[in-house]
């Protein structure tokens, strides 16, 4: 089972990891976007960190919904509605729940991914966060059928996300501002795929630490 505390740790750690990687994410975005991904994500997640104590005794659905509402009103760039939708759809799976089974955690990430696809209308290999999230969710789902533990499943998800993130380097962007660059977007790693990879590594870390 994944506890409410582990979910809080995940969000809290992710906020810290975003702060540490703020300049790195902005640097990646400077190459092919508008050089604000790190700044925007950090502004949003610092606000999330401030809000987290107010929902510390709430169910997982409420916590994730609070993350979503905070992001859509503070991030400012495309990552606001995209991550906001990820956490909104994830929150619906965790409504009223104090803990999650492995299956529910897989469903939660799947719902979040579907939300991002719906909101951003991106497909695989468009050089977006989908390129990290989608193979990760597939790998996590696959691990269910192997009867893997949560940690084993999430480790496979993180590996798949890392591979997907690196695969964005040679791609030509087809979504967002990077798509205006056409072939000049080749040779750069996508900042959204990178922050999505970081989100999954922090989830793995949070789940591993208390299990």
């Amino acid at each position, binding site marked *: 089972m994944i506890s409410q505390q582990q979910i809080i740790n995940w969000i809290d750690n992710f906020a810290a990891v975003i702060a540490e990687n703020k300049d790195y994410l902005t640097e990646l975005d400077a190459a092919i976007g508008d050089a604000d991904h790190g700044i925007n994500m950090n502004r949003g997640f610092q606000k999330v960190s401030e809000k987290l104590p107010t929902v510390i005794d709430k169910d997982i659905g409420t916590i994730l919904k609070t993350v979503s509402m905070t992001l859509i*009103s503070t991030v400012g760039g495309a990552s606001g509605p995209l991550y906001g939708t990820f956490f909104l759809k994830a929150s619906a799976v965790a409504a009223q729940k104090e803990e999650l089974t492995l299956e529910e955690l897989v469903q939660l990430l799947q719902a979040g991914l579907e939300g991002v696809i719906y909101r951003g209308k991106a497909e695989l290999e468009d050089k977006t966060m989908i390129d990290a999230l989608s193979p990760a969710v597939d790998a996590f789902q696959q691990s269910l059928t192997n009867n893997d533990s949560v940690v084993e499943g999430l480790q496979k998800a993180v590996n798949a996300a890392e591979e997907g993130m690196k695969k964005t380097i040679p791609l030509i962007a087809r979504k967002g501002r990077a798509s205006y660059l056409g072939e000049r977007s080749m040779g750069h790693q996508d900042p959204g795929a990178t922050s999505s990879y970081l989100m999954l590594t922090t989830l793995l870390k949070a789940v591993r630490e208390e299990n």
Partner: protein
Amino acid sequence: MVSLVLVSHSLPLAASIANLIQHIVKEDVNIAIAARVDDPEHPWGTDVIKIQQAIKSVYSDDGVVVLMDLGSAVLSAEMAIARFSESEDIINPLQWQQSG
């Protein structure tokens, strides 16, 4: 009359456009602005909740046209409109498609 919502990364840009429209159009147009985020150092961005409030503030049965500047403003506006259909608000999503 149809109202306008201007969604922009920049408040001065949206304010100038609103100003120009008010000068050009003879009748009073209801215009609401949803621009910038609350960050003095990096104010450029759009806020889904602000857009939702802006739409609500000028809404009438004649409808609202939501105009956006760049990429993420479109995503933010789409999410703001989606939030009306998810909540128990006054707005019927079908009306939105007709007016939008």
